[in-house]
C-alpha cells in the first residue's frame, strides 16, 4: 500500500514540472468551458434582458421555465445532446459526437439558462431604476436593452463567472458526449473520474488541485467584482 502523502507530492511535481499531458487536459477544459460560456452569454444575456423588459404573452411562464432549467442535471443534458448527435439522431450527419464541439454544445445547453436567469434578475432590477428616465430621454424599451446590459456589466460578469464555474466543474455532460478519449476529449473532470477509478491518484489529484484553484479564483473574482461594483455604483 502506498503512502497517502505520495500522490500529493507526485501531483505537485506534475504541476510544477508543467507535465505535457496535464497541460493538454487543462487547456482543453478551459477551451471547452470558456467557449461554451462565451456562446451561452451571447444567447443568455439578450434572452435574459428580453425577459426582463419585454411585455409579451407567456413572459411569466418563460421566466419560471428558465429559472427551472438552471438546475438541469448535467447527465440529462449529456443524454439529450447525445441523442441529438448520435448517428441515429437528427444531427447525426454532422458527426460531432465524441468531439470537443459536442462537449461545447452540451455545456452551452447547461450554462445558457444560468446566464439567462441571472441576467434577467440583474436587468430587471436595473430597469426598475432606469425605465422612466430612459423613456424620458426618448429611449424605447427595446432600445434600452444594450444600455441595461452595459450598465449592469459588473453584476452580469458575476453571472458569467457562475456559468463558467458550473461548466468547468461538471462531469456528467462532457463524459457522455465527449467519451473521455485520450488526447481528444479528456478534460479535467472526466480525467479525474477515470484516473481515480484506475488508481492513478497523482494525475487525478493534480487536476483536482488545479480545478479547486480555478474555482477559488472564480469566487474571488466574483467577490472582487461585487466590491468594485459597489464602489463605482453606490459611493
Amino acid at each position, binding site marked *: 500500500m502506498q503512502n497517502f502523502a505520495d500522490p500529493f507530492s507526485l501531483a505537485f511535481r506534475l504541476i510544477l514540472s508543467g507535465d505535457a499531458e496535464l497541460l493538454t487536459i487543462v487547456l482543453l477544459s478551459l477551451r471547452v468551458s470558456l467557449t461554451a460560456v462565451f456562446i451561452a452569454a451571447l444567447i443568455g444575456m439578450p434572452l435574459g434582458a428580453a425577459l426582463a423588459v419585454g411585455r409579451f404573452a407567456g413572459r411569466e411562464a418563460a421566466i419560471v421555465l428558465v429559472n427551472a432549467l438552471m438546475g438541469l442535471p448535467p447527465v440529462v443534458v449529456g443524454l439529450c445532446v447525445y441523442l441529438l448527435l448520435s448517428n441515429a439522431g437528427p444531427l447525426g450527419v454532422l458527426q460531432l459526437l465524441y468531439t470537443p464541439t459536442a462537449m461545447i454544445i452540451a455545456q452551452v445547453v447547461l450554462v445558457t439558462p444560468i446566464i439567462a436567469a441571472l441576467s434577467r434578475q440583474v436587468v430587471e432590477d436595473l430597469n426598475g431604476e432606469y425605465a422612466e*428616465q*430612459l423613456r424620458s*430621454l*426618448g429611449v424605447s424599451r427595446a432600445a434600452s436593452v444594450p444600455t441595461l446590459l452595459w*450598465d449592469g456589466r459588473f453584476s452580469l460578469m458575476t453571472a458569467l463567472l457562475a456559468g463558467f464555474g458550473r461548466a468547468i466543474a461538471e462531469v456528467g455532460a462532457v463524459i457522455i458526449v465527449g467519451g473521455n478519449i485520450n488526447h481528444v476529449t479528456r478534460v479535467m473532470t472526466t480525467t479525474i473520474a477515470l484516473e481515480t477509478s484506475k488508481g492513478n491518484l497523482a494525475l487525478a489529484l493534480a487536476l483536482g488541485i488545479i480545478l479547486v484553484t480555478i474555482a477559488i479564483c472564480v469566487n474571488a473574482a466574483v467577490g472582487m467584482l461585487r466590491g468594485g461594483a459597489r464602489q463605482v455604483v453606490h*459611493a
Partner: protein
Amino acid sequence: MRDGQIYAGGAPALPGILPLLAEGLVFQAGGRRLIDIERLRIAAGGTTIVLGPNGAGKSLLLRLLHGLIAPDAGRLAWAGRPADAATRKLQAMVFQRPVLLRRSVAANIDYALKAHGEPRAERAARVAQALEHGGLAGMARQPARTLSGGEQQRLALVRALAVEPAVLFLDEPTASLDPAATAAIERLVSEAARNGTKIIMVTHDIGQARRLGDEVVFLHRGRVVEHSDATAFFQDPGSREARAFIAGELVL
C-alpha cells in the same frame, strides 16, 4: 392666462408645442382616483409651480403630462395636437432622485444627446458646454455615481437641458439637497426659464415656489384646487386648503 407670451430675453423662438391642455384627466389605482383633473391649461412662457401636500398627486401629474404613464381617461394636447414623437422630443424631465447611468459624468450627457439623435460630430462640444454650464467640467471622467448629491442633481439637470427642451419638468429636484446645492439648482432653473424653456416644477417648498414661480397650480387629493398667478396665489389664496398650506398648517 398668459397665452403666447414670449419671455423677455428669450433667445430662441419657442418651438410651438404649448399650450399644454389636459382635459378630463383621470388616473386611478386600487379603486382610488389619484388624479382627477377636469381641465388644466399650461401656457407658454415662465415657470409653472405645482404645489401641494405630500401624496396630493404631484408626481403622478408630472408623469402623466410628460407621457411616462398613461391616463385611465382624458386627453392631453400639445398646441392642440395629441402627444407624439415630435412633442416628446421637445420635453425633458429631472426626477426627485437623480437617475444617473453607471458611466462617467461626461458619458451621461453624451448618452442623452445620442438618444436625442444629435450627430456624433457635435456631441463632444455640447457635452463640454453642458459640463461647464453645470460647474462639472473638472469631474468629466469621474463615475457619475461617485458625485455628491448636489452634483448628481446638477448633472441630471444639465443633462436634461443639454437637448435644449422646450418644456422641462422637474419633480422636487432639491428635496434632499442642502441650501448651497439648492441655490445652484435654482440658479440653473431660472436661467433656463430666462432663455425661454418652459419650466413645470413640483415642489412643496413654499420659499422655492415664491422664488421661482410665475404661476402656481395647487393640487389637493388629485384635484387642481387653484391655478393662478404666483403673486396672487401667495397674497390671497382662493381656497381653504391653499390658505392653510401657505400658512404652514398641516394639510391632509
